[in-house]
């Protein structure tokens, strides 16, 4: 079983927090990998909020492939950073030769381009790099987006932390939102792309459980948007549905819940907005979620939320203090990194609600 976790804070936090959050739950997962997405970056990335950051792990040839594509498209490098590698004997990790975090300037022709054109460009370039890397098996590109870093690796999470020197707090490598998971996709082939969290155009999602509607979801999503690719993990579908509802259809967030876990026909019938609900169910029945799942997601504006499937559920708990909120598969994770919180205020998300944490760290419970 997966264990997932997410931290959202008013202050910049170091990934070691995420490692502590996840390691305390290690009996529940199989310690087969570590992956995280950092958003709203501080430290050395704090001054580049508007510029896209390329996150990739690749061979030397892979670096060249990506740089050629970026160069040809007109991007220019502003800054590059690679984590300090701490190689020790006996670490359980399967490292890639290079971990690249590169801040780039948009092409000059995009100087006055509207936001959506820039966004499409970033998706196109990332897909182009991904395809090129896949052809020669030279690496993986995880995200190419402003103010976002992604790191994924196979191995023991504790050792991965040691390898990247992530156990040591570092003010230059921080973010206000960190989502993390400590497991690779052990049900199927172990592929780096299959590791949660998944990221697309400012949206992040990670999930626990099995998506039993994977085939239905995938068959429907693969024609909806060019970025809905891969499907190495059945949980990618949850991200794509969120992106489709919120980014492409521009529906308010609560309709994500109505899409993935529609109310029973009888219950929907009694509501004032039954026509809307029935229409959503009709047109997006292929995006329903059958469970058992719990999903943590982050929106481009930094809003974080959690929701579950409507009948089988998976464990999840949300705890918070005045300046930090944490979502965790197990309460032990909360106890580890938020021991001072008022645990009576912890929220165990039910099957019909979304727990939403906004940028003021206000925790709202939206009932479906």
């Amino acid at each position: 079983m997966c264990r997932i976790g997410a931290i959202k804070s008013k202050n910049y936090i170091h990934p070691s927090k995420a490692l502590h959050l996840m390691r305390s739950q290690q009996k529940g997962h199989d310690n087969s990998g570590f992956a995280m997405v950092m958003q709203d970056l501080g430290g050395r990335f704090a001054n580049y909020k508007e510029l896209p950051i390329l996150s990739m792990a690749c061979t030397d040839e892979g670096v060249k492939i990506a740089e050629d594509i970026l160069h040809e498209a007109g991007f220019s490098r502003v800054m590059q950073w690679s984590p300090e590698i701490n190689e020790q004997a006996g670490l359980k990790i399967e490292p890639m030769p290079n971990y690249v975090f590169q801040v780039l300037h948009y092409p000059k022709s995009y100087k006055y381009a509207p936001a959506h054109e820039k966004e499409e460009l970033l998706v196109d370039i990332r897909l182009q790099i991904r395809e090129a890397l896949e052809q020669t098996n030279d690496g993986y590109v995880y995200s190419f987006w402003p103010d976002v870093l992604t790191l994924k690796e196979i191995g023991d999470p504790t050792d991965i932390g040691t390898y990247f020197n992530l156990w040591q707090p570092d003010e230059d490598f921080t973010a206000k939102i960190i989502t993390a998971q400590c497991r690779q996709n052990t049900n199927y082939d172990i592929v780096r792309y299959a590791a949660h969290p998944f990221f697309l155009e400012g949206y992040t999602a990670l999930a626990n459980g099995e998506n039993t509607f994977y085939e239905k979801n995938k068959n429907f999503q693969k024609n909806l948007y060019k970025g809905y690719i891969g499907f190495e993990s059945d949980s990618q579908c949850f991200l794509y549905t969120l992106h489709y509802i919120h980014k492409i259809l521009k529906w308010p967030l609560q309709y994500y819940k109505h899409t993935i876990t529609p109310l029973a026909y009888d219950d929907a019938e009694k509501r004032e907005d039954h026509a809307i609900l029935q229409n959503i169910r009709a047109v997006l029945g292929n995006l329903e979620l059958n469970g058992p799942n719990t999903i943590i997601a982050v929106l481009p504006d930094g809003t974080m939320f959690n929701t579950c499937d409507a009948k089988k559920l998976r464990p999840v708990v949300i705890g918070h203090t005045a300046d930090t909120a944490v979502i965790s598969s197990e309460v032990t994770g909360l106890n580890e990194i938020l021991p001072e919180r008022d645990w009576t205020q912890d929220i165990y998300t039910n099957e019909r609600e979304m727990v939403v944490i906004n940028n003021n760290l206000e925790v709202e419970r939206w009932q479906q």
Partner: protein
Amino acid sequence: MATMKVNQISRDDLDWQIQYNTDRCTFCGKCVAACPFRAIEAGVEKRRKVISDHFTPEPKVQFKTVPVIKQCVGEYNFCRGCGICERVCPNEAIKPVRNEDSRFGVKYRATLADPYKRGGRANLATEKRTLDKIKVGRISQMTDPSLDASRHTFDMLAPFGRILPADEMPFDVVDGKLVMNSATPKVNWIYPIIVGDMSIGALSWRMWEAMAIAVAYLNEQVGLPVRMCSGEGGVPVRLLKSRYLKYVILQIASGHFGWNRIINAMPHMQELPGGILIKIGQGAKPGDGGLLQAKKVASHISEIRGVPKADLLSPPNHQGLYSIEESVQKMFLSLNSAFKFQVPVAIKVAASATSVSVYNNLLRDPYNIVGGFFVDGLAGGTGAANEISLDHTGHPIVSKLRDCYNAAVHQGKQGQIPLWAAGGLGANWNLAADAFKMMALGANGVFTGKLMLQIAGCVGNDHGKCNACNTGLCPVGICTQNPTLVKRLDIDKTAEQIVNYFIATDNELKKMLAPIGNSSLPVGRSDCLISVDRAVADRLNIQYSC
């Protein structure tokens, strides 16, 4: 050597031979009276017996004339094997026995120069049904718990009507909520099994009424929103003007039978019909058109259809339609507008090598008014058809349904025109299993016809038994207008048994949904199916297991 008439039809030419035991017969006459085909008659036979009533043999010959029940032998009065004689005989003295060496097919044609006609289904099934080679092989375990079929709430409704793509929905965001800014195509959410579509005329009015009663009861008492399709034979005016019309899907086919009455009744309708189904073709005898022989056109059939007593042929195509686009513009638009776009309009076609092209075309229709694609496979039943069409034309439903679904997936339009499939479903008496598998392969729902007749007491089967629906002499009162024969059918009992069958089926569907962990219909969940037949697995793109 004795002479014989080689070319004359004889008893050993027939498909069925009457096995009769004089010793058990009491000559009550029930069998003769009950046989609607006049395939048996009372007669006498001469018997010669040699006896001796002395101590020493003194043989004497006695001739006796004894009464017997005899089989008639002819191209018209022949035994269909329905077994009604056996059912009514108090002494088990008589029954039909299949003649493995029958030559009837050749005798009939060679004598009458006429295509042989019959009802029922294709009788040339040579191997196990495809659906029986498919199992539900993905059972929720460990990480995905199964549901409890008896306690969990299941949500089993299917759309009848056009579903728009999400990005074409007329939604506005007002105060953080979605609101509709214009209408969407009408969609009725109904039970995923439709009773259909068999006409009054093909069926006796008692059978048709029993189905209508059953459907109303299922809706109003049992809570299952089952719909029934009228078939193309008109609808009783009383029903058209009643509140029960909402449970009926009206069919229009190439003969347009009964539509005068339907149109005249429109101003008096209390409720809108549950839908309109335009029938282009049917799974049995595709391309041959419907056939109601004059002998079944009783006076009430003439009236309800608005036709004289004559052989009634629904032409194999709609005379005014020459293309798919034209059918959309003419029939769909006119029928949609007739009911002010409040009644979804769907189309029924025979499964065919061309079904996918038609479906693709409809999916791309810019008017968004095709509310369902009903595909009917060759194993469907029929009231009357030329045997050659029944046995040698048509397309199995399973792969065709799958192809249609895959075509929609390929276009990214799955679910937009709901797929409904039929054609021999429930032929193994278990409709729930067949329906479930078809849905997992991509159907939104299924429809069933022949099975309803079998629930009512149809004695025919797919091995040539009875199959006399075309004769107007149905021995159980289901497919006849003969006033004596129709009384054999108990309307209330038939309605009750159809209701019971649906209740059982509903429970069995849940028994299939629970192990895969679904609380809604498993449309497109082919991941839960496996096949023990490699060819079937490959063709349907499901997991092969052995």
